């Protein structure tokens, strides 16, 4: 028995050693993944981009904002004149948290009826949880500080009736009850579809090459770009059906409300699917055999899932890692999906992501056709 096993082991070894590229991929991929994911995954969400509308601009309001920034949970990235402008910024996804301080804040704090409004982007789960917990704690701490200050000075319990001197009113936009499923479904639809599209086309070309049928296509007058588009289109139908079934289950079974325009969503889903299929196709033309394609799919799936902003918000990642994330269609579609389904915004707010996806498609299809042509020579 041992002899026979050894013989096959030897055969496997020489096979593995002959396919150098696969071997190198297998040896270097884990390192790459560890470095990328090691920097990308961040469980404690801090430094949340925050927009502030401070209508008092007095000492007390500055103190309060100072406490928020000192907590390291909030980074003030922009200022706005009023609540409407703050909500607009969150709608467009520029900032994830808004703080609105009404006029005469110092006066109100003295009288003990000060109100601060903290608005949180309820499209992202980590942000919502982290921001609401932090805002609560900081508001409470500030209240206690103000009260104890006053009690120490007056030395009496008279002010007890006005116990909360500062009331931080927290509103989670889009998902006021912070239901997990509302957070999860839009991003998950995007993630499932990215995996699906990459897997669908990743073997399309390499399989024909391995099996040998590619020669038959080559003798026809077909051009590389025509071949590439022809490979993508049938799968678009499959992926679109996938998306429709996911959304149907999300809306009718899990009762996730669909706030925006359904047709806009379908239109952009088309664009997204095309970009994912294009990425799969590029993998397919780059790989020499199906095994290499398999390894690359694994790399792209894993890294794409984590860097795409579905699980962890992208603003917590270092800039270099965010750049790598730009290589995946998911990165652009997560804001689109959450924007339309959860926030109910339109093209005006999503313009840059849509544009990125379109550019992405052109680049990826062009690269795939070029690599394919080069491989032919």
């Amino acid at each position, binding site marked *: 028995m041992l002899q026979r096993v050894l013989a096959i082991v030897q055969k496997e070894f020489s096979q593995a050693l002959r396919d150098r590229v696969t071997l190198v991929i297998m*040896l270097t991929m884990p390192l790459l993944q560890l470095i990328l994911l090691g920097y990308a995954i961040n469980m404690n969400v801090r430094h949340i981009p925050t927009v502030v509308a401070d209508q008092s601009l007095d000492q007390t309001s500055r103190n309060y904002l100072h406490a928020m920034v000192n907590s390291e949970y909030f980074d003030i990235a922009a200022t706005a004149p009023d609540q409407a402008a703050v909500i607009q910024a969150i709608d467009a996804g520029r900032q994830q948290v808004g703080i609105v301080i009404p006029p005469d804040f110092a006066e109100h704090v003295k009288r003990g009826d000060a109100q601060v409004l903290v608005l949180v982007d309820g499209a992202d789960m980590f942000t919502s949880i982290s921001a609401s917990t932090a805002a609560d704690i900081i508001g409470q701490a500030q209240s206690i500080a103000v009260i104890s200050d006053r009690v120490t000075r007056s030395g009496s319990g008279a002010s007890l009736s006005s116990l909360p001197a500062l009331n931080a009113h927290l509103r989670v936009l889009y998902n006021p009850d912070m239901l997990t499923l509302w957070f999860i479904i839009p991003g998950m639809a995007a993630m499932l579809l990215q995996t699906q599209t990459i897997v669908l086309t990743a073997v399309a070309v390499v399989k024909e090459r391995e099996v040998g049928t590619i020669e038959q296509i080559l003798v026809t007058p077909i051009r590389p770009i025509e071949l590439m588009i022809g490979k993508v289109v049938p799968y678009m139908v499959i992926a679109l059906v996938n998306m429709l079934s996911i959304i149907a289950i999300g809306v009718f079974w*899990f009762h996730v409300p669909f706030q925006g325009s359904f047709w806009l969503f379908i239109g952009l889903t088309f664009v997204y699917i095309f970009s994912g299929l294009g990425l799969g196709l590029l993998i397919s033309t780059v790989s020499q055999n199906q095994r290499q394609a398999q390894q690359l799919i*694994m790399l792209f799936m894993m890294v794409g899932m984590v860097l795409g902003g579905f699980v962890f918000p992208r603003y917590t990642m270092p800039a270099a890692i965010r750049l790598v994330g730009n290589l995946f269609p998911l990165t652009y579609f997560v804001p689109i999906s959450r924007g339309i389904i959860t926030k109910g915004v339109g093209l005006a707010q999503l313009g840059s992501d849509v544009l990125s996806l379109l550019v992405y498609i052109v680049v990826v299809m062009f690269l795939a056709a070029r690599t394919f042509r080069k491989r032919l020579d």
Partner: protein
Amino acid sequence: MTSMTRSFQRFSALLYKEMVQILRDRRTLMLFFLLPVIELFLFAYAVSLNVYHLPTALVDQSMDVRSRDFVDALVKSNYFDITQTYQNEQQVIQAIDAGEVKAGVIIPPNFAEDVNSGQGNVLILLDGSDSFSVQSGYNGASAITQAYSINLTTQAVKKSGGGAVLLAGVNNTPITTATRVLYNPDLRDLVFLLPGLIALIIQNIIVAHSAMAVVREREVGTFEQILATPARPIEMILSKLIPGMLVVMVDMAFILTLGVFWFNVPINGSIVALVVWSLLFIVSGMALGLLISSVSKTQRQAQQITAVLNMFTLLLSGFIYSRSSMPVWTQIVGDIIPLTFYLKIIRGIITKGVGSAYLTSDILALVIYSVVALVFAAAVFKKRLD
């Protein structure tokens, strides 16, 4: 005819060919349509960031009204489920070491008196190898204590009706909790993350590699040549294991070194144990890959199955989302992933620094897993030959 229409003709001919190809492979097509739906159901139920019902060990050395009140508040919050009671801190740490509980609550003697004099002190211990448990345990414990303290203070104020008590209440709340996070006191993300990440990467590469092993030879046709030799199915399967294992062991050594020296994550336990049980994990991953390989008809099917497994692993194994907050049936689905068991082993050895004795059930699970998967793979393989 313009070149445009000719191009369109060529294109539609090609399109037709692709359509026919896809429609012919009915089984793959079904998979394509059904998979995302199944995944959505599984993941939607599994993913939850609010970890409630942390299994908790309790040491109540007071057993008075106040301590019972406080424990009641903890349980009512839904953050903590008291599953064990012990006599002292040592036993609690042991239980956390063994992974039986994720949190410990220790109430010292004379709690009621201490609370009345404003010096109540509760110690909360949290399992620092699981990030989510720590975070929600931390938040839960401080929120509950604060609420409980404020409650007590307002009661006291009402009774005495004076501001003097309030002052005391504000400056030193009647109960303070000291929270200690075991294994990872500074709450460094990478300490939480790295062991699981290493395991995840290794499982991915190993399954991807071995899943292609058998089906590839079948598709390319070299399989027939091997069948002509006297090698038996189980022998073939075993020999497929060995070269891949060597490559993956090198991978493992690489990324462990990177983790320790670049990311500065210390290995607290025995390196020998880590190597041995990692080998076992590699075998189990290989076995799973080979099973996939012998079940699949084409490399494409094998790819699809591994892609799904990949997502299962990321979301169901306990790597990101805590398994204790998942419904039972998603936990059972998670059990088909070797990582689910190995995660506890690698976190146990690297982060907690416990010995193999604490990890026996997971080690045993991996052994059984490997044997079952290998036997299955050989059986399916044999059947396919006929």
